[in-house]
């Protein structure tokens, strides 16, 4: 607990650095592109369009009662946040090698800054998401006010995984390759493109429920698509997965961070 307080305190002191790092990433990302920030909005829309075309026309996927495009986009926006942020976290320590080797910087700043940077992007992708919700006639409800809770849990979960990957990638470069495969597999194991209800076997459905990424996605869908208040179980699942990932990831990171310089 005292460790957590100290962490928060040093985070408060490094907020200028954090702000600068996030701003840097943002500026660099769109530096030489004509459309700039518009890509943040267009990209998820275009991928959704492609996936919707393939899955609803070719594979004849459907989600009874709700628009398939809205279903797809809600899952995709969350999953993309996770995959992009965790990928950037993974290389964040190695990418800032020249800094870490010369100046004392609290190293956990780098994964945090990546999660925040992609987080800002994520908030931007909510704009096309809400547009789709309106266009498809899905509509809004008061429960949308609960969504920041799910987003926060997704953020913490991603940060935890990011800490783990960042530390692991310093010692074993194999992690880059392995994680690429893991992410692809994870995308298909997470009900992003399909409704788990279409899977007949209850065993498989239970396995899917264990997927930590599915908790926030399910929460978001319960609110956005079905206009319901998520049950206490859903609240708990989001928090437990987030806290667990963060605990494991940050502990590993903390225990290995002094050795980073020697391995980079």
């Amino acid at each position, binding site marked *: 607990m005292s460790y957590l307080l100290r962490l928060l305190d040093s985070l408060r002191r490094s907020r200028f*650095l954090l702000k600068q*790092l996030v701003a840097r990433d943002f500026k660099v990302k769109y530096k030489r592109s004509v459309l700039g920030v518009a890509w943040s909005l267009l990209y998820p829309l275009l991928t959704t369009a492609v996936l919707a075309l393939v899955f609803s026309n070719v594979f004849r996927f459907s989600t009874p009662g709700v628009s398939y495009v809205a279903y797809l986009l809600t899952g995709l926006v969350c999953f993309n946040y996770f995959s992009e942020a965790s990928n950037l976290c993974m290389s964040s320590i190695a990418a800032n090698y020249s*800094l870490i080797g*010369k100046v*004392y910087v609290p190293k956990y700043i780098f994964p945090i800054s990546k999660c925040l940077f992609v987080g800002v992007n994520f908030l931007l992708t909510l704009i096309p998401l809400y547009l789709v919700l309106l266009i498809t006639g899905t509509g809004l409800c008061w429960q949308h006010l609960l969504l920041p809770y799910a987003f926060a849990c997704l953020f913490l979960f991603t940060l935890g995984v990011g800490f783990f990957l960042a530390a692991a990638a310093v010692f074993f470069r*194999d992690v880059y390759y392995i994680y690429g495969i893991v992410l692809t597999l994870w995308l298909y194991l997470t009900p992003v493109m399909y409704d788990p209800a279409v899977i007949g076997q209850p065993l498989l459905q239970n396995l899917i429920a264990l997927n930590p990424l599915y908790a926030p996605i399910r929460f978001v869908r319960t609110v956005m698509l079905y206009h319901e208040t998520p049950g206490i179980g859903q609240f708990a699942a989001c928090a437990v997965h987030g806290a667990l990932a963060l605990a494991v990831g940050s502990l590993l990171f903390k225990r290995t961070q002094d050795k980073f*310089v020697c391995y980079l």
Partner: protein
Amino acid sequence: MNDVMIRAEGLCMNYKTGVEKGYSLKQGFVDCFDRKKRAARRSRSEFHALRGLSFSVARGEVLGLVGPNGAGKSTLLKLVAGVLKPSAGRIEIFGRVCPMIELGAGFDPELTARENIFLNAAVMGYSEPFISRKFDEIVAFSGLEAFLDAPVRNFSSGMTARLAFSIATVVEPEILIVDEILSVGDLAFQEKSERKMRSLIGGGTTVLFVSHSIDAIRSFCSRALWLERGEIREDGEADSVCDHYRRSAVCGKDDESA
């Protein structure tokens, strides 16, 4: 008696060198089960960069570090900067350390000079209002007003170094680490930076100075530390240490050619 800014006691730093070669997940996994092998690998591959240094540096002292390549100078600087943790022994720092990052290692080439000043200041742990106050001074000292909104990737190495030097010194750090940086930039800037260094030294900044230029060490430093193979060979007045070091370096060369 001046107060102590840096104190090292029995400072050791070991690097694992062998692990670099083909250390992968597989090897790590195998090693988990074979403790004996792991211990053997570890001892075989250790490199002792520093072997029990003890010294202290007082406020306002300008300490030059001399020694051949691989003597442990840069390792020592990294320990002072807090980048490395010592393998054994202790190092205590009393004050804010400002490492002058050579050639702007903390710069992002895609960002403009203006953006990089803020980024670099943030990296060095300064607050936003502080750097906003000092911004004009930094720009004026670097003499890069005309290029403020150009990306640093288009800068020459001399210009980059000027920017780095300006950020590092304008903020008047308590402990300044200088690793072979004064030789960059053009003649006019070299003179300017030399003057700046002298005024910092006069103002009580403690400086750790690494250079292969014996003349620079002589002219700046009051005291010098001669490192060799991770040990202190000599610690004393800059002039006499430099004399001895130069003599040994020249003799060493003679022996080789003979």
